[in-house]
């Protein structure tokens, strides 16, 4: 039987700060964000509002339940995550699983080898460029600007 080790994940910055593992995880993330040229520091224009951000902490487990790493994510408060939304995501995933099962069934029958990969810091790869109604590029400062309609 596999033993599941439950490590408590901090729910906010105040709980995590001062704990070496989580401090390291946050440092690591900030370095990655800077290295990726995610952002630049600017003065907030008068007509724009800035959006908040918060840290989210996650303990990653291996298949056997042992701990693999401590992860800190910096999350923009673009929307409050609700169970409705989580549920929606789960549901989309169920639809996608048909494709996954068909690909696996086909690969095994044909004798193909199956491999997997994952992307570190996946969302940092997307370039942020939303267009407004006039077709010019707008810059993202906050939630009350036009590009959030999309």
């Amino acid at each position, binding site marked *: 039987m*596999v033993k*599941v080790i439950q490590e408590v994940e901090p729910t906010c*910055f105040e709980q995590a700060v001062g704990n070496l593992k989580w401090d390291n995880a946050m440092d690591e993330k*900030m370095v990655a964000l800077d290295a990726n*040229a*995610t952002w*630049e*520091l*600017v*003065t*907030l224009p008068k007509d724009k509002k*800035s*959006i*908040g*951000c918060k*840290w*989210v902490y996650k303990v990653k*487990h291996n298949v056997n*339940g042992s701990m693999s790493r401590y992860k800190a994510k*910096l*999350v*923009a*408060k*673009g*929307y409050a995550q609700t*169970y409705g939304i*989580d*549920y929606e995501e*789960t549901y989309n*995933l169920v639809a996608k699983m*048909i*494709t*996954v*099962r*068909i*690909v*696996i*069934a*086909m*690969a*095994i029958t044909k*004798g*193909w*080898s*199956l*491999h*997997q*990969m*994952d*992307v*570190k810091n996946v*969302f940092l*790869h*997307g*370039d*942020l460029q939303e267009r407004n109604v006039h077709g010019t590029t707008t*810059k*993202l400062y*906050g939630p009350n600007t036009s590009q959030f309609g*999309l």
Partner: protein
Amino acid sequence: MEQPPSYMDQTRPNLVYRLKKTLYGFKQTPRAWSDKIGQYLVTSGFQTSNADFSLYVKKIDHGIVVIVIYVDDLIITGNSDAKISDLKKLLKQKFEMKDLGKLHYFLDIEEIQSPKRIWLLQRQYALNKLSEYGMTNYKPISIPLEQNMKLNANEGDLMEDTTMYRRIVGSLIYMTIIRPNLNYVVGVVNQFMQRPRKPHLDAMRCILKYIKHILQCGIYYEAKSQLQVHEYTNADWVGNVSHRRTTKGFMFSFGSGVVSWSNKKQ
């Protein structure tokens, strides 16, 4: 965006970040990534499937490479190991991807592979959920729902905390992805999502105890079979007496194992 706490630029705390790349939490974030990888694959000669935009296929001479993308996880397969490792090298350079080797743990599903067969299991996910809901020590039971049990939307005490109920239903739905036998019973508890009552919660506990009973069960595909599609279907001809509705179900197998299933009340 505001500067995160404790990482403020001490000399310029009033400045804000102008984002050039996306972060978690923005509504447009997931799409920005899937657009980017999609564009890259298309320029490298892949075609998107019309049936599922997360499926990419590339044909080279007599070879074929197939990719399935789910956000930051990828499955790669095809008949040429050389072509697969070339692709892996490219993706590693371009997107900082990590090669996790043979398919073994994808979207909380364990894939146990040997040369001619594969077994899909969700043991670890189920164990984690059981412990999250404080049900680790419950006795397993061999049926998910009592036969002829009538659950009614208007009977029993209303639950005060409905988020827990919704959360459990969410994870139960996720556990149907390799367990066709849960499909019907999860559909039953799912109906009461809006206003869950005590009897519905009890029914849900039964399902979780049943999951404990079938921890080692999953879908199994093996190589010896022909790659054929079979369909099985049935209906219960007005099995739901109170609504006078018929429940229909179908199941498709592809090769040796089942790939798609559904049951629906008329």
